[in-house]
């Protein structure tokens, strides 16, 4: 039986949120709002391990065709009468899907003004494309399904968690289209993580969800809750035939302790209790770090109340979007996004103190080694000072490498990210052992640097030539052909790419 939550949206809290949000969020101006309300699920039709019991809320009638990011439900069509329908009816399913689509699009649209869908001006949505316990985003639109488990028919488009996850795919594809079919394990996993993060952040735009999670967790957001449990009903349905494929009380849980591993070292499939390289499974590492960061961000606020949670969710959305935009697409994409997010947090939200809790989340889940997390934040301060007008794409993550043993005359070097594509390989490789407690154990990063030395691709400083230079037999005598050099930049020694050598495999 669904519990009914009234509009205890607390007008006072909403007003507070609005005031606080003014400085940073950019809510979209809406045209005339139709009068009336509809019934909808808050985040999912189910509650925990049970296939039902999710809270029903009342919401203003959503207008899908409006900006930002217009949407059209193409099936079923036309729209049923907009009024509060009881759960279990096709009309209810239509409006709960419409409500979550509009809410999620509004949330992301405010953070990405002017963005249009990758699929065209309007995102088409089919709420019942056929029989399956699944939901899809392709470059046509969103597709949801129905399926039967233990005698109960489950509609994936009825779950706001599922809807906001799929809308997240469509959104990410619209502002970072390169990720759609990039042949990379971590990129694919990140897309899935973004879907889950979209579900979490979209849920937090509901006053009742914010109040509910604060009450459920006693204000300690990092505890498992309705918010962290994603797609409970779909998870239940899958569990009826494949018990080990999903969590015991949902599809995936954003509160988890999964620790980063090079996906190449993981099995292709595994039960939900373990990590595998399958994108949905591996995505949980990033989602777990994100959720922990989000919880920590709330803990930095004075009030830790519902209004603060709204502000934190919007700030997290902004950090995430800017971090993704700045991140270069490399095999170790998780670390690139994480480092970029830290740079954004440290440079644009320094007053809020978000950088420390975010860093903790990424370090505790092994996405960034402690040394690189610190270096990213330090780099941000320098970059901001150096280029006050710099766009977000100019903020770069860094990695600090200890190189004392190579006889280069410097104890450590800094490697900047996006300016040099090859450097990103360093970052990523390092993160495979990034969980190591000390930078000295950062073997993968070292192996890249050592590889440069070994292949004679690093221009060694004059003073260190006799001790450290490796000469390439095939090096041309008429011009320099090294790809990297060490430059003194302020108090740092920085590894800089000076050229790109396309014949990387042959020398």
């Amino acid at each position: 039986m669904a519990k009914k939550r009234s509009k205890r949206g607390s007008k006072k809290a909403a007003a507070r949120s609005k005031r606080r949000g003014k400085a940073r969020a950019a809510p979209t101006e809406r045209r005339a709002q139709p009068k009336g309300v509809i019934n909808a699920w808050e985040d999912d039709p189910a509650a925990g391990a049970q296939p039902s019991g999710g809270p029903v809320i009342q919401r203003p009638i959503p207008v899908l065709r409006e900006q930002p990011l217009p949407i059209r439900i193409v099936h079923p069509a036309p729209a049923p009468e907009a009024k509060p329908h009881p759960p279990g009816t096709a009309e209810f399913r239509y409006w709960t899907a419409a409500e979550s689509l509009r809410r999620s699009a509004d949330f992301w649209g405010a953070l990405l003004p002017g963005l249009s869908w990758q699929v065209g001006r309007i995102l088409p949505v089919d709420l019942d494309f056929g029989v399956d316990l699944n939901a899809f985003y392709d470059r046509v639109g969103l597709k949801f399904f129905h399926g039967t488990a233990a005698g109960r028919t489950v509609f994936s488009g009825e779950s706001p968690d599922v809807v906001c996850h799929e809308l997240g795919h469509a959104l990410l594809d619209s502002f970072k289209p390169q990720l759609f079919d990039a042949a990379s394990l971590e990129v694919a996993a990140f897309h899935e993580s973004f879907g889950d993060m979209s579900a979490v952040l979209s849920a937090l735009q509901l006053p009742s969800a914010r109040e509910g999670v604060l009450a459920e967790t006693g204000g300690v957001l990092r505890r498992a809750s309705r918010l962290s449990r994603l797609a409970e009903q779909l998870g239940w349905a899958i569990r009826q035939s494949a018990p080990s494929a999903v969590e015991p009380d949902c599809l995936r849980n954003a509160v988890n302790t999964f620790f980063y591993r090079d996906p190449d070292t993981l099995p292709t499939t595994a039960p939900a209790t373990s990590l595998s390289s399958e994108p949905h499974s591996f995505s949980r590492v990033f989602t777990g770090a994100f959720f922990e960061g989000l919880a920590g961000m709330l803990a930095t606020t004075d009030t830790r109340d519902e209004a603060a949670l709204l502000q934190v969710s919007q700030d997290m959305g902004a950090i995430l979007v800017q971090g993704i935009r700045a991140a270069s697409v490399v095999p170790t994409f998780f670390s690139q996004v994480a480092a970029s997010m830290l740079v954004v947090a440290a440079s644009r939200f320094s007053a809020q103190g978000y950088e420390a809790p975010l860093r903790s989340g990424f370090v505790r889940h092994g996405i960034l080694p402690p040394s690189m997390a610190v270096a990213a934040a330090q780099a941000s301060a320098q970059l901001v000072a150096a280029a006050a007008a710099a766009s977000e794409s100019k903020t770069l993550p860094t990695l600090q490498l200890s190189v004392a043993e190579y006889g280069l005359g410097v104890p450590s070097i800094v490697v900047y990210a996006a300016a040099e594509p090859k450097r990103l390989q360093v970052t990523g490789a390092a993160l495979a052992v990034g969980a190591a407690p000390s930078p000295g154990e950062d073997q993968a990063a070292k192996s890249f640097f050592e590889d440069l030395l070994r292949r004679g691709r690093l221009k060694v400083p004059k003073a260190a030539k006799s001790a450290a230079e490796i000469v390439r037999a095939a090096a041309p005598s008429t011009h320099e052909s090294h790809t990297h050099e060490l430059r003194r930049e302020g108090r740092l020694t920085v590894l800089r790419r000076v050229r790109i050598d396309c014949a990387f495999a042959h020398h």
Partner: protein
Amino acid sequence: MPRINEQALKKELAKRGFESVSIKRELPGRRVKVDANKLYPVQVEGGEAIYAPVPMSLSVELDARGHIKSIDGDTPEAAAVADAVRYIKSLRESGQLAAPGEREPASGVTHRIERDEKGRQVLRRKRFSIGGS
């Protein structure tokens, strides 16, 4: 530096085999930083090569009229190619890659291998799903 005509640049890059092009920023010296995917042949368990969209970061030099003069970094990093090989293997092993000739892909399938107009086998994502296979 004249304002970059993004559409024209994307068109030129498409002719050179780059897909999903996004212009990241302008660099000094009529250069543009670009993120894109390039179809790159990878060998997975022998047989015919599969062209996989491998993510890359390019530095494109433009001439005075805004046409491409040269491209730095138009060959994928070795790590990115290795990642593509692992990715295809993982898709196959987890049942997310449609079998050849499969018309109606199973629920967990997210990718297909298609023949392009040049007769190459190309890995293509068809969709994202909410759950694994």
